[in-house]
């Protein structure tokens, strides 16, 4: 792909980052140079924009290539040096959204070029399937890699036209997938070890940003309340729980789901072992071992969380209830139900008519 200066300013992640960083490193040592100073200023601003806007969004300054281009690698160095995961994630997403907004304005061939620099197996098509027109066909492998964090139904592979290994997409959809590719690439870059001697002025900028925004990262995590609220179990867990209690056969994944769920809401290991006691082939030692394994006190030490709603659906463990609403995880469903129950009981106490 032959990139114009304008292209690089719009999509700075397309150039060789290592070389760019090396070059910039030389320059940032010389912060007294006013030209360099404005680059650093813009770099800090890129990060600020990502942190201030919601959804995070970095702006694009037309016809300012001399600053737009080098400020990107500097911003990468700064965000990485912050060592703060919230800043890194927000910044990566901000740059990705910036790229998306620019891409949807581009000609299809430009989009194709960008995708090809990422080694996607993609081609331009002008096909109509049913009465929908598609602009691109992309290998289902590249498709799956770049829709992994998407949860919308319309991005599920089963809801896409898939022919001979290619998913048919519109221009806008390809731009959306590119956004994800860009986000992931930038995030990977930000997680690389930074071993540069950074000038003090730059470090001060970073500290300032951290002080101002990183406080936000301590997002209030909803604590799962102590105790086990059976009435707040989501339907999948209720079903597994009563099956276990009555000694019915439960699939391996079902046992895993139930056990990891109960552990995560704070139930103690011996109490969980007891639940499986009525199973006719109950073996205390083995059950205890398995429960401890899931709790992370054995083996790899990984503490497991239950599978997501999507996974439970795939394996036929989701009874499909409307009471779950838009929840994506049984633990989230549980917390939500507790909040609702609490609110209802408060309402009762205060005596609403």
């Amino acid at each position, binding site marked *: 792909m032959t990139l114009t200066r304008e292209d690089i300013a719009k999509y700075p992640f397309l150039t060789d980052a290592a070389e760019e960083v090396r070059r910039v490193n030389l320059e940032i040592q010389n912060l007294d140079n006013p030209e360099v100073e404005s680059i650093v200023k813009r770099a800090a601003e890129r990060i600020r924009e990502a942190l201030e806007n919601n959804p995070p969004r970095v702006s694009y300054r037309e016809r300012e290539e001399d600053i737009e281009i080098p400020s990107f690698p500097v911003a990468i160095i700064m965000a990485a040096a912050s060592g703060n995961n919230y800043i890194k994630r927000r910044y990566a997403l901000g740059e990705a959204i910036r790229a998306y907004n620019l891409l949807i304005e581009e000609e299809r061939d430009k989009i194709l070029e960008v995708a090809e620099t990422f080694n996607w197996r993609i081609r331009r098509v002008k096909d109509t399937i*049913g009465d929908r027109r598609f602009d691109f066909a992309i290998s*289902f492998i590249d498709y799956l890699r770049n829709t992994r964090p998407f949860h919308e139904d319309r991005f599920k*592979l089963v*809801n896409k036209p898939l022919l001979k290994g*290619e998913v048919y997409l519109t221009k806008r959809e390809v731009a959306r997938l590119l956004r994800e590719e860009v986000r992931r690439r930038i995030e990977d870059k930000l997680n690389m070890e930074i071993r540069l001697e950074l000038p003090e002025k730059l470090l001060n900028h970073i500290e300032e940003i951290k002080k101002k925004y990183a406080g936000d990262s301590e997002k209030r995590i909803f604590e799962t309340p102590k105790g086990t609220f059976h009435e707040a179990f989501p339907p999948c867990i209720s079903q597994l729980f009563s099956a276990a209690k009555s000694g*019915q056969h439960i699939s*391996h994944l079902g046992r895993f789901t139930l056990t990891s769920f109960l552990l995560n809401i704070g139930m103690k290991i011996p109490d969980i072992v007891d639940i499986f006691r009525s199973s006719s082939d109950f073996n205390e030692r083995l059950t205890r071992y398995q429960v401890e394994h899931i709790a992370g006190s054995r083996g790899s030490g990984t503490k497991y969380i239950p599978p997501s709603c999507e996974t439970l659906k795939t394996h036929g463990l989701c009874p499909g209830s409307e009471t779950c609403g838009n929840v994506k995880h049984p633990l989230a469903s549980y917390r939500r139900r507790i909040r609702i129950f609490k609110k209802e009981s408060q309402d009762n106490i205060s005596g609403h008519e």
Partner: protein
Amino acid sequence: MNNISFIHDKFAEFYKENASMIKPPSNISKREFGFFTFKENVVIRHKSFLNVEDLRNYVKQLVPSHAYYSAAYYEMPEESMEKKGWLGADLYFDIDADHIPTKCRKIHDTWTCKKCGFQGRGVAPNECPICGGKGFEERKWPCEICLESAKYEAMKLLDFLIDDFGFSPHEIQVSFSGHRGYHIHVENEKIRELDSSARKEIVDYITGTGLDPAYHGLQGTPHGRRVTSGPDMDEPGWRGRIARGTHEFLLSATKEDLEELGLRKKIINEIISRREEILKSWEKEGPWSLIRGAGVEAWKRIIRKAIESQSARIDTVVTTDIHRLIRLPNTLHGKTGWLKIPLSANEIEEFDPLSSAIAFKKGEVTIYVKEAPEFRIGEETFGPYRDIKVELPMAAAIFLLCKDAAEVAD
């Protein structure tokens, strides 16, 4: 002589002569191997072999009841799970009659209450009707109908893999599992690194999980009261499957079938009384706007049936598990004494597992059969038997012994 040592000796004889048939996976040194033994009934895992000769010799000496290898490639296959260093995994599908609700299961599958010994047929109940016990010994029987329906599911799966996912038939290895189903194995550089969540999307595609017909051409008026158009039968992918499945279903749906879907009476009557017209409509734009009173929701219910018949019933856990152990081709299955037989994708239609998978072709032995439904081995049919001493060809005898339906007579 007890059953286990008899079977063990026969397996030992077999491997002595035929271990050279064992088909190694590609990149053998990067795979983990696992075995079940007869006598101690233990699992041996985290084994690895540098070459196929070592593997064959090991099987010859160990005489396992089951032999497996990993779908995954590891840097160090002998290490514990956490230290193996996962490099990738082939894509695997398992189709087992267990996942197909065939009617014959009520005839040949049995369960025995572990508490009181009461026996019944079909799938075990939650509770024993006699003593209320909850544990059952289940015996599943690989009958011809079950094997045929597993084959049909495998063929549907092959269509998905070739037409939709674009794999070429030479990347796909089909095998008869040696018991009640088929394994389908895709080996392709590009799919090796797919993580579990990508494989889950593949599973959802093949099982039609989360499918919304609105994305496949089912269009209606803004409030969905009327459907304006739908997919055609000759279209590719799920569009065509939805149309063909709907066509098939409406062709033969009884009043009860339609009631089961919760359709309104008026719609049911329309479908039944206008079957001819519906059938003819497929020549043009399909019946989507033909049935009065049927809006988007009603059609979605009908399409659910289409998805059910057109999807392939695969074991969802096997495909999404990127550390799965898979039975080694051309080894014996300890529950049948049959072989896991590899075949190519275009052979499956003609394939007869009950002839091709037979390992023990010589000799006869007298056994005492407790109970067995009728079964076929090769061209010969045996049984049904109940409490009877019979002399049987080796393959038939080993099969019943492996199924624990018989004992070696002295």
